[in-house]
């Protein structure tokens, strides 16, 4: 059956893995484990990008997210409590309120997606050549992003300074 083509099978596996890992990340009671599950999700996301043939994006995801950010998390977790600080949930009442709103939100969104009807006909498996990415990042024409790029770099600088300032001992 065409429905069960390779792509779909791979996607299904990936999706199951990601969902499980995400769920585990928000329910586990150990901080280090939560961060590890998050790492799994991030890897899965990179896989999704690869499936979309956005290989560069996938690479960025692995390098920045999985490589950079998660390391920060791990450092933080270790600094704060050697990973032993439990991450228990809030009160029962709020737990159920959160559960209720998130589940109903999910259901509503899913309903909208299922009934929405997206066209998939424009999808091509060409991917994005690196050259295009590079020129778009550095170009100044329409649909080019040098300004954003520079702003982002300033933001990162500011964050760096800010983070140092905040975390510095008095």
């Amino acid at each position: 059956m065409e429905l069960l083509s390779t792509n779909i099978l791979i996607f299904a596996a990936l999706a199951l893995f990601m969902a499980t890992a995400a769920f585990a990340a928000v329910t586990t009671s150990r901080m280090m484990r939560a961060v590890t599950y998050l790492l799994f999700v991030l890897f899965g996301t990179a896989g999704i990008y690869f499936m979309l043939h956005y290989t560069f994006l996938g690479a960025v995801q692995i390098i920045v997210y999985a490589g950079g950010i998660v390391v920060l998390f791990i450092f933080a977790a270790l600094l704060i409590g050697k990973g032993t600080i439990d991450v228990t949930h809030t009160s029962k009442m709020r737990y159920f309120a959160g559960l209720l709103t998130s589940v109903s939100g999910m259901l509503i969104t899913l309903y909208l997606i299922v009934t929405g009807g997206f066209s998939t006909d424009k999808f091509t498996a060409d991917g994005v050549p690196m050259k295009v990415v590079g020129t778009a990042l550095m170009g100044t024409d329409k649909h080019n992003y040098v300004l954003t790029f520079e702003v982002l770099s300033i933001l990162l600088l500011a964050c760096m300074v800010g983070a140092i300032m905040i975390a510095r001992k008095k």
Partner: protein
Amino acid sequence: MIVPAEFYLILATILFFIGVFGFFTRRNLISLLVSTELMLNAVDINFAVFNAYSHPEQLEGFFFTMFGIGIAAAETAVAIAIIINVFRNAKSIHIKNLRNLKH
């Protein structure tokens, strides 16, 4: 066979609301940040999917995702700096203990 866009969207939705659920219910600042990352990821996926399926001739979603990743990095860095500082001052990162900012 191409995976239909809805599948990706469904996955992103599930991830997003798992993140929301975590954000609502966790009591630890780092866990909250983890949940936030989950939500951000879900949104990033959506951007990429919409780009790939709706407007493949332009790369707006693509770059939005990329910049999103960049900003997530920045945000995480600052957030973690704050968390560490809070921990240093309050000896706790449990949000129920962090009520001093209220008054």
